[in-house]
């Protein structure tokens, strides 16, 4: 099951050239770009690990692209996303975020049912990937 999230979640994965163009746009807006990775695909897993420091004062997409390549080299089987942070007063938040790398096989989610008081059923989802310990989930 293909996980989608972020700005271009409705599109197929962006190619490197498209990523580069998005980075150019972000840098043109004066946003700081950072990379994050995880191997827990649960939708409520909001806080991913940082890959290196956020990149300030960059002028050209080439700098970010080298970092993206480095992240892919280190974590080929993880989800990696690219965030652009806007420090403008009033925003001070992520303005754009999209996935730049995903595992080859994404096993999807199991639906869990819990019987609660009075025949109530509570539903929950659990990624199959998290059956295995962190770091070895997609290899």
């Amino acid at each position, binding site marked *: 099951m293909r996980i989608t999230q972020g700005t271009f979640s409705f599109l197929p994965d962006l190619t490197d050239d498209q990523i580069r163009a998005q980075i150019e746009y972000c840098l043109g807006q004066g946003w700081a770009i950072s990379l994050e990775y995880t191997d827990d695909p649960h939708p409520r897993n909001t806080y991913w690990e940082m890959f*290196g*420091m956020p*990149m300030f*004062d*960059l*002028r*050209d*997409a*080439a*700098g*970010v692209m*080298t*970092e993206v390549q480095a992240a892919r080299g280190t974590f080929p089987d993880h989800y990696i996303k690219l965030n652009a942070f806007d420090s403008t007063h009033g925003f001070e938040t992520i303005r754009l975020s999209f996935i730049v790398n995903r595992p080859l096989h994404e096993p999807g989610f199991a639906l869990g049912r819990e019987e609660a008081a009075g025949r109530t059923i509570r539903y929950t989802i659990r990624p199959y990937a998290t059956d295995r310990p962190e770091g070895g989930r997609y290899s």
Partner: protein
Amino acid sequence: MTSQTDPGTTAVGPAASAPPLDLEAALADSQVEELLATLDRDLVGLVPVKTRIREIAALLLIEKLRMGVGLSAGPPSLHMSFTGNPGTGKTTVAMRMAEILHRLGYSRKGHLVAVTRDDLVGQFIGHTAPKTKEVLKRAMGGVLFIDEAYYLYRPENERDYGQEAIEILLQVMENQRDDLVVILAGYKDRMERFFQMNPGMSSRIAHHVDFPDYEADELFSIAELMLERMQYRLSPDAARALGEYIDRRRMQRNFANARSIRNALDRARLRQANRLFDRRGAPLGREDLMTIEAEDIRASRVFDRSETTVEGSQ
């Protein structure tokens, strides 16, 4: 920008068998001629440097035309080394170089990131690589100017982290040639020793440009240019005094060419302000506020009898 050819060339390019290429149009298109003209106008002297830059610009323009008709010699190596004494205009020229490369399409953003050893080399193990990489990332798409580059290599300490910075730098200089242009700058003799110790660095630098010291009359023109920009002028006496000042100052130690001249002018402005302040009561005109008199310059320590012992930059 890199793949862009002017419309004229593309129109005739593939159709005719031997289409005449319009060098003039390409030149006008890149607006580089105008940039070289301002370089000529704004920078006094430095004839060998200007010639070299003109040559490099010509090479790059021709290379671009060649690419337009499908001839390729691979992307040219653009890394440079600027050697010369302090105050000979290395940083200024590097800034212009960034602009020229940008106009010719060899540098996507055309900005200059000026760094020294402190910005590249870390304080402890594992600190250097991220620091150097961050600087490199900032400089991508533009020009990285490393001032006093020889400090990166300290032969007396074999565990010095500078070597690590050099290795990372070399890797990027080789692999990301179209993303980044590196300019190394420093004193001539020490740079030569640096290149001897780091042959890898030397072989990756295509253009070695040497900046000569300025002559006395060139220094005088520089002073005039600086004053004009600051909206001051010299009285005829002061001009004579400045001439003598330059002759004396050049003979002294720690002479930093144009930088010494700028410092001298700054101090002359200080003395002028004090002089005007001391004669309070007398009416002041626009002319008075603009003029630097001989006494403002002759008060300098350079004119002391004991000048031979003076070592400061006064």
